[in-house]
Structures are given as C-alpha cells and as structure tokens.
C-alpha cells in the first residue's frame, strides 16, 4: 500500500504548476471579459454614430423645409431644385407646397415640371407656425426613412473569438482535472489501485 502511494506521489504535479493552470483559467476569463467590453464599445460607437447622423440630419432637414416654405433660394437652378426636392421627399415636399408663403414664385426642376409651387395668397408665417408639429413629424419620418436601422456590423469575428477562448478553457479544464486527480487520490481509488496490484502479484 505504501509503495502504491509512493508511486503516485512520485508523479504528483507540484502545486505551483497546478496553481498556474488555475490562474490560466482566470486569465482566460479576464481576457474574454475584455473582448466582450471591446465588442460592446464597438457596438456603442457605431450606434452613436447612427443616432448622431440622424440627429443632425433632422436639424438640417427642418431648416431646409422651413426655408423652402418661406424663401425663394437665391440663384435657384433646376438641379438645385431637384436636389432640395429629393432631400425633402414627396410627403414633406407636399407639405412645403401647401404652406409656401404668399408671393413666392414657382420653381421648376431639370425636367421642366414645377417642383416648388407658387405660394398661396392666404399663406402666412402664423399658418406655418400652427402646422409646426406636423412639419417636425414629417421631418422625423423622412430622416427615419433615410436611416432605417443602425448598421448592424458583422460581429461574427467576436463570436468566433469567444468560441475559441471557451474551447481553450475547456482544454485547460481537462488538464486541471487530470492534475487534481494525481494528488487527491481518494481512499476508494487507493483501494482499487491496491486490488489491481494484488491481482498483478497473483
């Protein structure tokens, strides 16, 4: 029995090596957490850029819509008229044409068709002010159409990274389990080993 124990004790892995295996596992966990944080930050920056774009676009479009209702752009060329109409989109353009101030002339696009209608005689700034909530909502709708969803960046590389770290942790876990067995030999194991040796003697 003593010989058996000596035999196994002789192959026991020193505690610092076992501790290193445990620490490697902790190192993997920290590493995986850091990459997870990295991934979240990348998502956040992409998402913020999307909303930042939308936020600024709304202000610019509101300005364009109100300007189109109240002013005739100096040096309006057909190409510029087309460009502004494209920015506004059909719904907002419809509202602009409905509310353009009295006295504003019609503007034609490059096709020769009237894009911005002449202002109606009874249109005033007050009337536009009363319709501001609707105008703002149309602006939001148009920007929403232009920026459908935050661009979903391909995150598969991060998934693959976590899968690989997880696989390494499993390998390390298997090594750790093996090294735990070689010192913490249970009484039952000792008994079984002794029986095996007894059988060997026969």
């Amino acid at each position: 029995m003593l010989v058996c124990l000596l035999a196994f004790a002789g192959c026991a892995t020193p505690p610092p090596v076992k501790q290193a295996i445990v620490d490697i596992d902790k190192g993997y966990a920290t590493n995986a957490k850091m990459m997870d944080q990295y991934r979240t930050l990348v998502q956040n920056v992409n998402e913020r850029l999307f909303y930042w774009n939308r936020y600024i676009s709304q202000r610019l479009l509101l300005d364009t819509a109100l300007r189109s209702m109240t002013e005739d752009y100096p040096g309006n060329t057909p190409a510029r008229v087309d460009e502004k109409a494209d920015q506004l989109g059909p719904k907002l353009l419809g509202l602009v044409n409905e509310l353009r101030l009295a006295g504003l002339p019609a503007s034609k696009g490059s096709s020769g068709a009237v894009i911005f209608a002449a202002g109606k005689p009874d249109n005033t700034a007050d009337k536009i002010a009363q319709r501001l909530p609707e105008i703002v909502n149309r602006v939001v709708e148009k920007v929403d159409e232009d920026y459908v969803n935050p661009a979903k960046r391909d995150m598969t590389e991060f998934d693959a990274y976590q899968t690989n770290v997880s696989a390494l942790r499993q390998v390390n876990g298997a090594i750790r389990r093996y090294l735990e067995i070689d010192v913490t030999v249970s009484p039952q194991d000792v008994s079984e080993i002794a029986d095996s040796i007894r059988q060997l003697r026969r």
Partner: protein
Amino acid sequence: MRYFVLSFLLLFTAFGCSSINSQSVRDLIHLQTEKIDQASKNAQTLTSGTEEAIKNWQKSVASLSGALENQRKIESVNSLIFSANRSLATEKGINAHASLYMIGQVYLKDRMGFEQTVLDQFDQDYGALRTLARQIGESWKALQKTQQAVDDFSQRSSLASVDTNLVRSLIIDFKGDTAAIDQVLIRSTQVNDALRKASGMGLPRGNELSGVQGLNEDLINLLQQIKTKSP
C-alpha cells in the same frame, strides 16, 4: 517475487513517469501552448485594427460636426433675426424662416451641452478601446509566458525540481482593469440612450398629435407675447 514487484514499483516511481504522467495531457498542454501563441500573435493586430477603426469613426464624426457647425451659424443668425421685435403674422422671407426655425427648435431637445457630451463620449470610447486593445495583447503575452513554462515543465522527468525561476515564470504577470472600462461602458450606453431619444425628437405621433397641437399653440402664443413685450 515480492522484492521484484517492489523494485519495479520503485523504479517506476523514480524514472518511469515524467513530471506529468500522461502523454495525452502533455499533448493537450502543448496544443494549448500552440493556440495561445497564435492568439497572442493575432492580438498584436488588434491594436493597429483599433487605430484604423478609430480613424474612420473620427472622419465620420468630423464630417457630421462640419455640417452641425454650419447649421449652428445659421441658427445664430436666426436667433438674431428672431429677437427683433416684429409680429410673426407679418413676417416674410428670411425673417419668417428664422422665426419659424427658432420656434421649431422648441420641439427639439435642449442641445447646448448635450452635443458636447456626445462628442466627448466618442473620445472616451476611443480611449477605452485603445486601452482594451493594449490590455488584450498584454493578457495573451502573459498567458503565453505561463503556458510555455507549464509546457516546458510537462516535458521534464519527474525528478525535475521546481526552482524559483520556474515558480516565477508560472505566475501570470497581468492585471487588467476591467472595472474602469465598465464605468466608461455605463456612461457610453447612457449617452446613446439620451441621443436615441433626442433623435426621435420625443414627439408623440398619430392620435396624440391633436393634444400636442393645443399645447403647441399655447407655447407659440407665449413666444409671441415675449417677443411683443421685449424692448
């Protein structure tokens, strides 16, 4: 016979096993060493990849900031025109546009300060990404060093001693500061939430609009009164 078995076992004890008594486990340890080496090499490209991504983000933000800056100049002019004491009912052209835009701003969130917070958060996130890229690289290097020491040890015989150098090389020399990054992440998410709400303009849609209309009229009337009473 008994002495023969004893001698055999003692021989086995002393020389028959290596420091880690299983070829499969030694293979596993070696496999792990190879994989960590590869991961450590790959992690070095994370730093340059991060810099490249930050450069692209900065370019996009700068382009948007340019547009915002131009709009701010327009808003300053609008603000000056709006502050002139005239009735909205009779305003035309640029005066009408300026007044209406300033009233329209009521519907948008209070922007001063908030915009700078958003821009500052971009910089804080870039900083955290740089820190993480560096720390992930350092983490793999530390794992690589310790794993190599385990691998070297596993190839030795059982008579190999555990000396100070081995113990030293078995210690993982890395402490990442994930708690500080967590703080940046909390703020980063909060700023995104605020910006998402702001870019939604917070205006109720559909049936709720009529309720807003009344409130809105009150607000416009109030603005008109302020304008009329101002010297």
